[in-house]
């Protein structure tokens, strides 16, 4: 074991130890704190720190460049790590995604020399007592609160043998608050994403939960069928995240995802949404700031180890309702003479000029369903991107512009790509917390949308 070096020094040591034709080394220094609760009391908690050291070596054995990745936590022997990654590369054989390593520094990289940012359990110093008060209030009303709060900080230092030294600090936070009646028959949810917890108001979350528990006083049973449905921003985000995650250009070009065009090629240029909706990512989106360069430990159709350090500028995936870009590593871009693009750890859907709040959309609804979140979303058919899943924690019947009561849950079967073509109204875009995918994805801004014929396939008795 070597001594506990600064992360920057670990990167420099790895690069200095290289005997390969190229190397990418990165260190992710992370810290996180969490609180979890159920039935108005704590269940688990934690305060954790970690360091991940990743070395990717590139070796040209004569037939083409090969890559090998080795990752370790803690303070590994850097020379041994470099040797292992070089051996892995020599064993691998030429990589299909080989292109020269990136040497141009992207805009927005941080201060290489500064110490890593960190968080601690202290981030909950105000939050925990406020939550304790909320538990007391719930107890007094005979209600139960469940949920989770987490704050994490990850600082990445990425260096390459081509001279890049890039640093990024990524704060991520989330709070989920689930309120239930004492008999657990009524259940509602509120959630927020945050960078630092300074903007988290327990009172606002409790207010949201209270309002929906109030709406749930009256229970209305409805059968399966197609319903006019208002999807709030969280539900829209979970569908759009999956829509985005399957946007691999190579899969489309090879005829094997929903973005493939019958007869060959992909559907770029095709109108997907009836409204001029734009789905985009931007590492500098205010409040949703994400890493502006690529950090990749293993190649796939979505990303390539050869693209480490490549800038990830703002990109419109769907532009004015038309499919505009797919996810395309540089090697596939070269083979298809199309632009290289990369995912960013945020996603925004917006309709230019839209101003309606969800409440205003409810007020303009004669009869329809208002959802809260979607859950257990799984792909049924990649051809159409048919997804199944459940409504969760609040399906409300709207009649004459007002919430009339809470409806049973449903299993849905819907393709989000198909849904885009059927959205008849989108409201103003606001920051939201995805329910299904927030373990991996917390930076989203979405509008509420109206779909005239959402497919509720069967009734779920769950609450």
């Amino acid at each position: 074991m070597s001594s506990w070096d600064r992360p920057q020094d670990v990167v420099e040591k790895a690069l200095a130890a290289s005997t390969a034709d190229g190397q990418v080394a990165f260190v992710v220094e992370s810290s996180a704190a969490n609180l979890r609760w159920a039935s108005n009391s704590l269940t688990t908690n934690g305060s954790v720190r970690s360091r991940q050291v990743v070395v990717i070596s590139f070796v040209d054995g004569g037939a083409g460049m090969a890559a090998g990745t080795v990752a370790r936590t803690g303070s590994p022997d850097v020379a041994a790590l470099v040797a292992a990654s070089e051996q892995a590369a020599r064993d691998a054989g030429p990589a299909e995604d080989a292109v020269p390593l990136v040497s141009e520094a992207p805009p927005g990289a941080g201060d290489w020399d500064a110490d890593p940012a960190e968080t601690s359990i202290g981030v909950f110093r105000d939050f925990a007592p406020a939550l304790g008060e909320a538990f007391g209030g719930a107890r007094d009303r005979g209600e139960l609160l469940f949920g989770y709060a987490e704050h994490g900080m990850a600082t990445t230092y990425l260096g390459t043998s081509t001279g890049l030294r890039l640093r990024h600090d990524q704060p991520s936070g989330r709070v989920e608050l689930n309120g239930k009646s004492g008999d657990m028959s009524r259940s509602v949810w509120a959630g927020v994403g945050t960078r630092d917890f300074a903007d988290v108001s327990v009172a606002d979350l409790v207010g949201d939960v209270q309002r929906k528990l109030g709406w749930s006083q009256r229970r209305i049973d409805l059968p399966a069928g197609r319903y006019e449905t208002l999807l709030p921003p969280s539900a829209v985000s979970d569908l759009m995240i999956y829509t985005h995650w399957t946007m691999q250009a190579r899969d489309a070009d090879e005829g094997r995802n929903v973005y493939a065009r019958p007869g060959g090629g992909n559907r770029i240029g095709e109108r997907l949404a009836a409204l001029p909706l734009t789905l985009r990512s931007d590492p500098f989106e205010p409040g949703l700031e994400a890493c502006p360069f690529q950090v990749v430990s293993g190649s796939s159709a979505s990303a390539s180890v050869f693209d480490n350090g490549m800038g990830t500028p703002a990109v419109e995936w769907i532009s004015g309702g038309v499919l505009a870009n797919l996810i395309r590593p540089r090697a596939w871009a070269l083979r298809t003479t199309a632009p290289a693009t990369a995912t960013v750890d945020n996603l925004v859907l917006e309709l230019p000029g839209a101003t309606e709040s969800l409440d205003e959309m409810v007020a303009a609804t004669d009869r329809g369903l208002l959802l809260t979140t979607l859950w257990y979303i799984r792909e049924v058919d990649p051809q159409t991107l048919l997804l199944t899943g459940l409504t969760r924690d609040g399906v409300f019947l709207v009649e004459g512009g007002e919430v009339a009561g809470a409806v049973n849950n449903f299993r849905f079967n819907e393709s989000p790509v198909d849904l885009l073509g059927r959205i008849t109204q989108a409201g103003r875009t606001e920051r939201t917390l995805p329910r299904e995918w927030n373990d991996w994805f917390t930076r989203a801004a979405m509008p509420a949308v109206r779909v005239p014929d959402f497919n509720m396939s069967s009734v779920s008795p769950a609450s």
Partner: protein
Amino acid sequence: MAASRDVDASFLALPLSALTDAALTRALDLGCEHADLRVERIRTQSISLRDARLESLADGEDLGLAVRVVHEGTWGFAAGVVLTAAEAVRLAEEAVAVAQVSAAVNSDRVELAPEPVYPDATWVSHYDVDPFEVPDAEKTGLLTELSEQLLAADGVEHVETVCQAVKEQKYYADTAGTRTRQQRVRIHPDLTALTVDRTTGAFESMRTIAPPAGRGWEYLTGTGWDWRAEIAEIPELLREKAKAPSVQAGRYDLVVDPSNLWLTIHESIGHATELDRALGYEAAYAGTSFATVDKLGTLRYGSEIMDVTGDRTAPHGLSTIGWDDEGVAGQQWDVIRNGVLVGYQVDRNTARMGGMARSNGCAFADSPQHTPVQRMANVSLQPAPDGPATDELIAGVERGIYVVGDKSWSIDMQRYNFQFTGQRFYRIEGGELAGQLRDVAYQATTTDFWGSMRVVGGPQTYQLGGAFNCGKGQPGQVAPVSHGCPVALFENVNVLNTSHEAGR
């Protein structure tokens, strides 16, 4: 062979005793009622090939330590990656600080169900060849060869191959005096063949149904599965599937193969009989359960022929251990007997909440960075001792569908309403298979489905299926788990046409 193996010397050479003394002494000094230390080293390798060419070989190792305390009735947990006595002391202090911050929101005193002390315990899983001692070139070589065999077949346009291997080493020590050292290995290879019809844009895939297993590299070379035989069959099966008629939605008798049924068991029985879910611990995330504690001993879960056990002892089972992450020995117990709910899966704190004298050993943390939570045992449907073989069972079905291999799955947060697809669906007519069907999904409510089980296959049809990636908990954790089951017949199940569901 497995019996003679010891935990790797390089893991035992870590300063385990010094870390134990430092962490547990400090925790006791700070007034903790209980403290435990885990040191874990988890080696992972994921090899992926696209069209028989190596796409990625990622080799990882997660080494770290965690201290968990009960301080004045409240949990505290802290984890790090520096294996020194000073860090172990810091983590004990940090865990107590976490407990103190958390006390503001805790009103439920933690009390651990008692467990005998195991002062010097060692366990190693059953495997022959450590995948991490096989050279990478040999592994990628064999995977390339298998992929090429599949890709060379008529009609197969693309092949995706993934092989994941894990070696998990765990050391556990607690203030009661238990010290366990364990090592287990698991492997999950799979290959998927894809066919594309360029003119219509239609594409279809078929994946190997070989389950992940608590075995070593020998699983790829002839022990426990015949890869070459399965790969030889896939192209014709895929060709037939691509041309198969779309299913007529409606009600059918289903003969469900173990390669599909394991996942239905996992979702509708495994998760529904986790006591922490029934108590509401997962209510905001993974969900609760319809099988609430007040129904223990009376809930009619399924038909009389339904017997389900939980175990952490089955050879090659993915949830099999010697001792769990709270120092509780691996056990086997009844979950459902004659169709009635009789048991839950628990850890030491929920055992006490459920009025049980002892935990059945279901605590698990997927990394040294995470606190143990109740995770799934190998929950398995028992075969009928004199039950039929698959062809005998099919012979008794007039009009039905035979379901093989798992694919898409989804179930609600109380484990009532589920929907599953599969790799292959065969029409059954007059007791015989009559070709494949496309676009099939079956949808049911848990107790209706298990209540419709009319025949359970014999021991000759029993297989262990499973997954590496069962998700639960916040922060999210993944756990490996196996489920054994025979083939079984379910009457009058609702079958959907997924193409119609998509509005086509």
